[in-house]
């Protein structure tokens, strides 16, 4: 039981079943992702979509069962900070990929995405 020294700590109220459940789910999710790639079950693009989804689910499992993030009032600011970080991550990663792949397509003659001729500039 958590006493006064631990009640405000992350993991206060954590019990064995969190860690066991987190471990079992992680083994299944990680195993499925590696198996899909190593055994070439699905076509390439479908594999990418599925393993990204598996990773997202596993992140959620870790946050709940290992980092003990929940929707309690006490953790509201932690969750707000995490959501803001997620927004920054989205802009950073999504924006980088968007801009760089556009630049790449436009700067490589002969690429399928190349629609403008140099004279157009």
């Amino acid at each position, binding site marked *: 039981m958590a006493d006064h020294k631990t009640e405000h700590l*992350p993991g*206060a109220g954590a019990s064995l079943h969190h860690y066991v459940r*987190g471990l079992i789910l992680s083994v299944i999710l*990680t195993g499925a992702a590696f198996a899909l790639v190593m055994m070439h079950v699905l076509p390439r693009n479908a594999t990418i979509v599925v393993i990204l989804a598996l990773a997202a689910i596993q*992140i959620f499992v*870790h946050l709940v069962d290992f980092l003990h993030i929940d929707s309690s009032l006490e953790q509201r600011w932690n969750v707000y900070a995490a959501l803001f970080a997620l927004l920054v991550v989205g802009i950073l990663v999504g924006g*980088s990929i968007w801009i760089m792949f556009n630049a790449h397509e436009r700067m490589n003659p002969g690429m399928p995405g190349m629609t403008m001729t140099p004279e157009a500039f």
Partner: protein
Amino acid sequence: MTLLDLPEAHSLHAKQHPAAHEDDAELTEKTVFGFWLYLMSDVVLFATLFAVFAVVGRSYAGGPTGQELFDLPYVLIETAVLLASSVAFGFVTLAAQDNRKQATLLWMALTFAIGAIFIVMEVYEFHHLIGEGAGPDRSAFLSAYFTLVGTHGLHVFTGLFWMIISGIQLARDGLTATVQRRLGLLGLFWHFLDVIWIVVFTEVYLIGVL
């Protein structure tokens, strides 16, 4: 302390205790939130490295590709080792909550040992790649790879160092409020690194060989 057995001492203790308790609780709450903000800034650091890898991860410059270099069974073992270490720290948290000092120390030693195996495996992997002529200077892909995976490894190494310090404090002071608080933060850090690793093995290794 025979003095504490006197009735007056008891009432005195009871009067002082709630205030001390509130101070501790408030400090813990603030400290945990501050550390959480640090972790979120670390998320942004890793996001930049993930973005770099997403952009140049297939710029091989005529050098080796991920498909040629990465050994998935080896990465799967690394992943399992890091997961085991993360779960082992869960038992540190549980033992600390139960005020079992010896058990806390033992589980932390186990967490440290498993974490050290991960670092050794990673150093071996880097050494092997560099020996094959696939060092960080070979291509944009390998620069991004070594920076991203190396930054994660550096964090794990820092976590191991932190465990040594916490182990010494725990052995010396016992499970005081301060030690409990620091163990809580270390736990957040350690589990956080396993979350980052999920993205590493998915983006770098699994998608990298496709």
